[in-house]
């Protein structure tokens, strides 16, 4: 029986988790902070973020403008008090990262450079070439090594939360290398596990993005907010789903159809390629339907044309775009347009929290893509998510540290022991004992992904969503018949794959049901049968609660401070 206890237990070692860990560790060297991650922290998916991080740093800009861009981008579903808090704190986080060594790209006068991004009125996006997530993650990870009170649990897969007496008291995790389950008790627990892109077939997300934190909170009775709001990024490589950053358009790249036409003039002449992602992704699908897309081995695609930018801009500001295009498409963007198509990229929705990251369960917090505060509403603007991880990571870390300090006693050992015993019997006794039958893990996963792709994608309607809901319920039933071939305890990636699909089936269900119940079109949620926004009925957040059957859907008001909802026009 293994057990350790900490003041703050953080699940996830990406930008949000590490920022929270450092903030909590800095408040008091006597606080013990645990970072529990199913991968080494530098493998976290923050690493794949490319284009940049938004913050108001220049005289030509203002926090008011950053707030109004974000709120308009969100199609008025963002909570405006949260947005105001967020934009005011972005600049100090950029400078904090700078002090920690982040290699921000600089202007000739030595200041942190800024570039244009979709839906942002002015150049507001800080960048470190086009490997911004990579640099932020490694800066945070390496800086975290300075703190002796940060204890890492690398390659520990969290299987459940410890909940006792109406509060969260830590987690039970599978130590992949040790091949054992352990209880990691904590006065406060923060979920910073990122998104769940792998519920879709075609996604920019890494293999590890399986919505673990969302499902853990949901199973503990915490609602998931606005899960129908799924961002599809317009420029992904066909076949692999590898992301080509929006910075390619921020630096002046064109989107072209097979006739060589900059087709965005048909959809958004005022913004062209620098429109928000929801509108660009829909325009791509419309071009495909109109027969103006290219045809390739992986279906229809459009062109991202960077040829006119010149060698210097591409080499200095977009080196990773070139590297990815050369390696994975076998072409040089200096000479040829890059084939692109939309793919799942980001979850605006997530574990429902306030600006402090608090959930409805005392002692449980969530932050980053796993959470929904909400500053992103129905559509996130590019470069707001890394900033979100930093701003709310810090704030949540501080809040959780305060909470832990006020709690005199560590959680009672009894609840941790009981939770551990329950998980040992469920995972080692139950799951590992199940023999393989005609259902396979990969089979169920792929069916879920294809169903989500087809019916809960960029365009949606009542019939497709209703069908997706019932098919997902059937998949859940069939999943009960999946057995495991690998009976080992050590590094059993079939077992972790099983636990991930188990999480994803819960999360996919909340997405489909939330989408079915929102009978309007807003931001990324586009219903062909309800093509307009309906503020009278749906200017509200969706909340999905777990039940024994389909999720129970409820709603919560949107906080409006000074930007009255108007038609979203660019």
């Amino acid at each position, binding site marked *: 029986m293994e057990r350790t206890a900490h003041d703050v237990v953080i699940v996830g070692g990406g930008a949000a988790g590490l920022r929270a860990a450092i903030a909590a560790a800095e408040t008091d060297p006597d606080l013990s902070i645990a970072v529990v991650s199913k*991968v080494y922290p530098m493998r976290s998916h923050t690493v*794949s973020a490319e284009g940049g991080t938004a913050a108001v740093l220049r005289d030509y800009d203002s926090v008011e403008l950053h707030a109004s861009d974000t709120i308009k981008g969100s199609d008025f579903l963002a909570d405006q008090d949260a947005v105001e808090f967020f934009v005011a704190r972005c600049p100090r986080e950029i400078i904090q990262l700078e002090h920690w060594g982040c290699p921000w790209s600089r202007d000739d006068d030595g200041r942190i450079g800024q570039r244009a991004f979709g839906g942002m009125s002015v150049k507001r996006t800080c960048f470190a070439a086009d490997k911004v997530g990579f640099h932020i993650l*490694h800066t945070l990870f390496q800086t975290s090594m300075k703190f002796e009170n940060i204890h890492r649990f690398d390659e520990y897969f969290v299987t459940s939360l410890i909940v006792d007496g109406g509060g969260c008291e830590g987690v039970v995790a599978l130590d992949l290398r040790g091949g054992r389950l352990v209880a990691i008790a904590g006065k406060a627990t923060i979920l910073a596990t990122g998104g769940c892109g792998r519920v879709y077939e075609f996604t920019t997300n890494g293999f590890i993005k399986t919505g673990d934190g969302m499902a853990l909170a949901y199973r503990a009775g915490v609602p998931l907010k606005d899960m129908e709001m799924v961002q599809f990024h317009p420029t992904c490589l066909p076949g692999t789903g590898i992301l080509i950053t929006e910075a390619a358009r921020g630096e002046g790249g064109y989107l072209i159809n097979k006739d060589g036409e900059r087709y965005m003039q048909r959809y958004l002449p005022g913004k062209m390629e620098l429109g928000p992602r929801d509108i660009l992704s829909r325009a791509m699908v419309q071009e495909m339907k109109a027969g103006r897309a290219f045809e390739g081995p992986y279906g229809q695609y459009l062109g991202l044309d960077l040829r006119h930018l010149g060698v210097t801009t591409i080499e200095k500001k977009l080196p990773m775009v070139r590297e*990815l295009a050369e390696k994975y498409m076998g072409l040089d963007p200096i000479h040829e347009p890059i084939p692109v198509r939309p793919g799942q990229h980001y979850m605006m929705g997530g574990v429902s929290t306030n600006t402090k990251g608090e959930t409805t369960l005392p002692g449980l917090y969530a932050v980053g893509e796993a959470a929904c505060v909400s500053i992103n509403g129905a559509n996130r603007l590019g470069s707001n998510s890394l900033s979100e991880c930093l701003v709310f990571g810090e704030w949540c870390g501080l809040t959780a540290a305060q909470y832990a300090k006020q709690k005199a006693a560590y959680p009672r050992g009894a609840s941790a022991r009981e939770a551990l015993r329950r998980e040992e019997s469920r995972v080692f006794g139950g799951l590992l004992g199940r023999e393989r039958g005609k259902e396979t893990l*990969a089979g169920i996963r792929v069916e879920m992904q294809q169903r989500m792709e087809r019916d809960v994608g960029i365009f949606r309607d009542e019939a497709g969503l209703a069908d997706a809901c019932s098919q997902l319920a059937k998949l859940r039933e069939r999943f009960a018949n999946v057995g495991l071939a690998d009976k*080992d305890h050590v590094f059993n990636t079939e077992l972790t794959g099983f636990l991930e699909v188990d999480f994803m089936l819960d999360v996919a269900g909340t997405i489909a049901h939330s989408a079915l119940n929102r009978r309007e079109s807003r931001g990324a949620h586009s219903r062909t049968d309800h093509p307009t926004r309906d503020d009278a009925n749906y200017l509200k957040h969706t909340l999905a609660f777990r039940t024994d059957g389909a999720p129970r859907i409820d709603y919560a008001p949107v906080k409006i401070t000074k930007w009255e909802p108007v038609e979203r026009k660019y």
Partner: protein
Amino acid sequence: MADQDVVFRVKRYRPESGAKPTYQEYRIPYRDDMVVLDGLNYIKDHVDPTLAYRWSCRMGICGSCGANVNGQPRLTCGTYVRDVHRGAVTVDPLANFPILKDLVVDFDDFLTKLSSVTPYIVREDWGDLTKEYTQFPEDVEAYRQQSLCINCMLCYAACPVFGASPAFVGPAASALALRYIRDTRDEGADERLARLNTKSGVWECTFVGECSVVCPKDVDPAGALQTLKVLATMRHMRRLLMPKSASR
């Protein structure tokens, strides 16, 4: 159709079985645009779900999918089968590391070494969050190359010195030490050079240079190690000649 298949020879090791490592062969469908990782994923999903390996981003930036492919350390997500297969593709775990299971190796040792080179900005006056430090583009350029290290461990797998003396601080940790030393915001060069001027430090390197050959991000750790030898020597000379000002 035999010519549309490819054979993967994959090293298997299962610590709970008590058996020694062996190779297992898998015949799987071939596609011209498949990378080695695609092959492993095909095996995992369709042939043998017990195979263990790490991967995530499949775009060459997370650094988790390294393996020895036909004897060469590579990122499996960036290695096309068409470029490496000669009848078969042999996949081994990264050399020089303890194997945990199949292709999964233990590199906790690297994180201890990384931590030992003080991989963060050391600076006394960094409190004021209203002011950024000025860095000109050429200042960033000075450490940019070393800052691109993704910690994929291919350089350690290629390094015969690390293979023979595991205490050697090694290529990636050294490159990252130089990254911070070259950063105009940093004042920690002395403590890093002191650490690297030890028995397990930069002098172990015999400039084989394989680390820079296999590096998927052109970090050039071999070059970094030679630069560090020069810096460590200069520091040593300064301390001999000017003991009082040695700390700067």
